[in-house]
């Protein structure tokens, strides 16, 4: 059994790679029960409680390296915010995260318009065009009333918002990928709603739903961490005289009534470092706003004390947290896709650990230690 202990680590690497890649390729074949943990619900419920037009500050403090864990989380939270009609201010503390944060925000915003792309793609197909035409002929019913009759689950999945009866305003938090997935075979439960959803896609394909400077903005990055937060608490305009694109923040419509941190309604910090703690110490403790933290799995244990003490409303920990969040808002994303591979990897590591202990005891403890 000695060989079991002295195995070349490269064999372990191969096993890990094979397990993860194959689980990932087979991910459509497995479905897992969803169990949303309390800390994740804490963030979700806090955002759910906000009303239309409330301001959420999203501090996307991570760089490309930790993007696989935090990117799905950021998108899920942003989708949730935008679909609830919240105004989102984006920023980052990390110089190496500027490009990424900006990209995530813009792409999530685009998703609300991305149905345009989906529309165009589908229009090229003969049968799709026929379907569109058929749906268009249904337009006798005003869309607002049509959507209002949807079962709650659909509204939850699609987040259709109706303002007043006369002028239905809809946003749809599905991107091209998700739209295609759901309209096709996608999530089994939603599949039969496909046609109706398609009708809405077609309806709203004509105008952009979110406007920069009114519904969202991206302030970019300033150095200073805690000090920057204190400055933001005193005046947002002083901390960020201009946004990432060089526009004056003071002139931005959505920031007219957001002068300092005291004016925001929720802060979501998605951090791969310790910026979450910095936000607690310098931000919410001083300027009193509720906040939640999403973080890489490794940081999550660090944050439990803050959660326990009620300083943060919740924690989204790692890819599993992101998966739970995606489940809560009913929009599957890349975290949901990653779960099978995750599970395989976990089980593999557990098996490896058990195996090495078996080897250790069978080889005789004393001799193994000596080696």
């Amino acid at each position, binding site marked *: 059994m000695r060989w079991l202990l002295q195995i070349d680590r490269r064999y372990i690497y191969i096993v890990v790679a094979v397990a993860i890649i194959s689980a990932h390729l087979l991910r459509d074949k497995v479905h897992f029960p969803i169990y949303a943990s309390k800390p994740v619900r804490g963030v979700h419920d806090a955002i759910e409680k906000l009303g239309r037009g409330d301001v959420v500050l999203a501090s996307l403090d991570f760089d490309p390296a930790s993007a696989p864990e935090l990117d799905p989380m950021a998108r899920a939270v942003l989708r949730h915010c935008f679909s609830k009609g919240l105004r989102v201010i984006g920023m980052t503390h990390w110089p190496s995260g500027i490009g990424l944060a900006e990209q995530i925000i813009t792409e999530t915003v685009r998703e609300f318009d991305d149905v345009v792309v989906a529309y165009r793609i589908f229009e090229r197909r003969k049968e799709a065009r026929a379907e569109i035409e058929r749906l268009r002929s249904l337009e006798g019913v005003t869309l607002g009333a049509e959507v209002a009759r949807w079962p709650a689950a659909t509204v939850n999945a699609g987040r259709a918002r109706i303002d007043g009866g006369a002028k239905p305003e809809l946003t749809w938090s599905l991107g091209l990928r998700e739209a295609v997935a759901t309209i096709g075979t996608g999530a089994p439960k939603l599949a039969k709603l496909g046609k109706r959803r398609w009708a809405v896609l077609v309806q709203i394909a004509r105008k952009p739903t979110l406007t920069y400077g009114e519904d969202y903005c991206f302030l970019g990055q300033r150095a200073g961490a805690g000090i920057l937060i204190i400055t933001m608490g005193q005046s947002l305009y002083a901390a960020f005289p201009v946004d990432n694109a060089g526009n004056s923040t*003071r002139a931005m419509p959505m920031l007219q009534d957001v002068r300092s941190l005291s004016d925001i309604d929720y802060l979501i910090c998605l951090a791969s470092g310790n910026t979450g703690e910095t936000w607690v110490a310098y931000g919410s*403790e001083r300027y009193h706003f509720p906040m939640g933290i999403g973080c890489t799995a490794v940081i999550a244990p660090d944050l439990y004390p803050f959660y326990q003490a009620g300083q943060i409303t919740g924690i989204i920990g790692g890819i599993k947290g992101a998966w739970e969040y995606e489940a809560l808002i009913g929009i599957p994303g890349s975290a949901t896709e990653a779960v099978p591979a995750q599970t395989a990897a976990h089980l593999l590591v557990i098996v490896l650990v058990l195996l090495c202990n078996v080897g250790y005891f069978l080889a005789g403890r004393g001799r193994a230690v000596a080696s």
Partner: protein
Amino acid sequence: MDRARATCWRVVAGALALWCGAVAAAQDAAVPSTPTAEPARAAVPVPERVWIEDTPNDDGRKLTVRWLGADGEDADGVEVYVELATKPDGPWLPAAGPLPARGAWFRDLRSEYGPFTPSGTEAGHAVVVEPLSLDPIAPHRLLELAMMPPGDPRRVLGEREVEAILGKGALAKVREIIAAHGVKERAGIAGHVEGRILEEVSYFVLERPWYARLVLRAPGRARRIVAAEAPLAPQQNLFNLRKLNNFVFMVLLSAVVLIMIRRARRNPDLYLRRIPGLDAVDEALGRATEMGKPVLFVHGLNPMDSPSTIAAVNILGEVAKKVARYDSQLLVTCADPIVLAVSQETVKEAYTHAGRPDAYRADDVFLAASEQFAYVAAVDGIMMRKKPAANFYVGYFYAESLLLAETGAASGAIQIAATDSFTQLPFFVTTCDYTLMGEELYAASAYLSRDPLLLGSLKGQDWGKAVIIVVLLLGTILASFDIGWFDALVQTY
């Protein structure tokens, strides 16, 4: 065309101003500022006393308006509005409200008042108001108004309003401030200049005493207006009483540490428990010398002003002295240029101190890379190519910890880690031969150098821990028996 529009504006503005003035005058005439009741309708209750006080613990931007009474059963449904003015007769600016007249408002002020929040019935009600946030006179509004071109009708209207509140020539004064900062037109004014202007304008707005009054209203009942006793200018406070416990803790702990250091000067023989990781330093360096291979010292990622990095540099000094004595090669990798410069200085000094200034080579202390994972790639490469006999990971580490330590383990080096990064400790503990955890990082330079002064400060730290343990146990016991005052000692605001 433009003139016509301007005239239009003026007419509208004039009408608006007249109407506003008339309404205000009518209101004020109907209800004089002393409390009187209208006989026709049941009136709302009147507070016994209304006064303004300076909000403590702030930088002079806030005032607190307090009042007593008017919260009995007859106050049900009554809403309170707080208004501010710079003159006893207005114009009045809405500053807070609506607030329910019933209920103790003071408890919400804990965040401002901290541990010295008045409590009990005598505390009454209070609300914090910020003159700088009031609408027409908020500094950024003043700035905007002052920089509008002279012909703009909105400016004329705004100017009248502002001068009514802040006094004649207020806007001219604002313009003076702006001009003093070398700004001529609104377009293209840079953020930092604007920040400085706004700050001065804020002082100009704040420098006067403020009058306050309460307006109490309820549907179907007569309105009451009660003026506060005396005007008050907000003051900057010199000490933040909310941080009192923090301050006391700092002073006590500093005193203990400094006293212990003094005592150590007189009595240098202090007992120190064994720290295996530090005892292993000599072993590791000895091995490196024997094998003729270098010793690698890897800094964490934090910049120089982080305490972990400061501690790391102190340890580097001690390690470098030993290396110089053993006559082996020391490689130091950094990710931050200031840490690099300081490390170079430290190592140079250590070599000089050990009598081997010739052995110091500036290129051995180098910036491996400036970004987290580029740093990992570079350091991993060094470990695989130079095969150092001993690796030291000292400072604050992030995700790179395991990438470094596992490669180091594969390269067969003795590994000693020292970090206060809680999240990365598990990885160092499992992959390194020795790990200094948390506080041990800060104790290391004292342990290695055996300098009595540094050892004294360790003794001070131990006293701090003893006190904290006692307080924790006592606090838990008292809290379990519902005795809350003790808990309040460590309350943070």
